[in-house]
C-alpha cells in the first residue's frame, strides 16, 4: 500500500521558485495562468498488513514532523491500496 504526501508552501508565503516557473511557462506561450505554486511530493510504500487508518496516521505524523516545516508549509496525505 502507498501513502502519498503533498507538501506545499502556505498560501501566505512567497514562492520565488513558483514565480520563476510561471515566468518560463508563460515564455513558452501558455496564457491565462494566474499563479503557479510548487511543492514536494512523497511516495511512501507501506506494508500491506497495515490498516488504512494506521497508514494515514503514520503518514500524517511523518509529514508533520519531518517532511514539512510547519512554519512555512502545509501538507496533505492520501492513502491508496
Amino acid at each position: 500500500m502507498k501513502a502519498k504526501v503533498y507538501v506545499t508552501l502556505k498560501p501566505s508565503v512567497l514562492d520565488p521558485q513558483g514565480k520563476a516557473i510561471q515566468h518560463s511557462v508563460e515564455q513558452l506561450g501558455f496564457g491565462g495562468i494566474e499563479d503557479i505554486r510548487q511543492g514536494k511530493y512523497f511516495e511512501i510504500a507501506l506494508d500491506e498488513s497495515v490498516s488504512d487508518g494506521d497508514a494515514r496516521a503514520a503518514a500524517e505524523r511523518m509529514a508533520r514532523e519531518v517532511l514539512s516545516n510547519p512554519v512555512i508549509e502545509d501538507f496533505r496525505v492520501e492513502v491508496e491500496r
Partner: protein
Amino acid sequence: MKFGVIIFPGSNCDHDAYHVISKHVGQPVSFVWHKETDLSAYDAVILPGGFSYGDYLRAGALARFSPVMRSVKEFAARGGLVLGICNGFQILCEAGLLPGALMRNRDLHFRCEHVRVRVESVDTPFTNELSRGDLLSLPIAHAEGNYTCDDATLAEMQREDRIIFRYCDAAGDVTDESNPNGSRDSVAGVCNRARNVMGFAAISPRKCLSVAARASERSRPPLPNS
C-alpha cells in the same frame, strides 16, 4: 571556557570553527560527532556551516534528528551557549530552538559574497562587546538564507530586542537592495527568548566566534551538571 564543534555528516565549516577557536580565540575546543549525546564537558557548542545531510528535504531539516540534537536542546535549556552559523542557524530553526524558518533565497541562487550587517542588539553574550549600530563586513554563502516568520513572531522579536543583526548598505541603512536574500525585515541573526541561543546567517566564524568566546568568557553562565 570549553567549546564543542558539532560535526554533522555534510558539515564543512567545522574545521574553520575549530581553527578560529583554537588559534584566534585561544580556548580549548573539541569536535563532537553527531552521534554523541554527552555535552556535559562543554560550556558552549557551535553548530557550524555546511550542508548537513546534503540539505536534502530542507536545509537543516534532517540534521535536527541527529542524536546530538536532543542533547543540544537540553544543553540550551540549562543555559549553555549555543551558536548556529549559516547551516547551523537553519538547524536551530528546524529544531525549534529559534523561531522562524530559512527559505530559498529570493533570486533562487546560491549567493557567496561579502555583505554588510548592522549590529541591532548587544544584549546577548555573543554581541555584548560590540556596539549597537556597528557595521560588520562578512561573507555569506547560502542558498536558503531567506529568513521568514509570521507577523506575531516578528512583532514579538522586535519587542523583545531579539533581532541581533540586519543586512544593511555601506552607510548602515537597511534597504531592500542591501538585503541579499529577501529575509523578512532584513534579518541576519536572531536569538531565543533566554538569549543564550543565537543563529547567524553569515559564515564568518572568525568575527562572530571571537566575539562570542570573549564575551562568554566574562559572563560565564552557570552550568549545572558540568
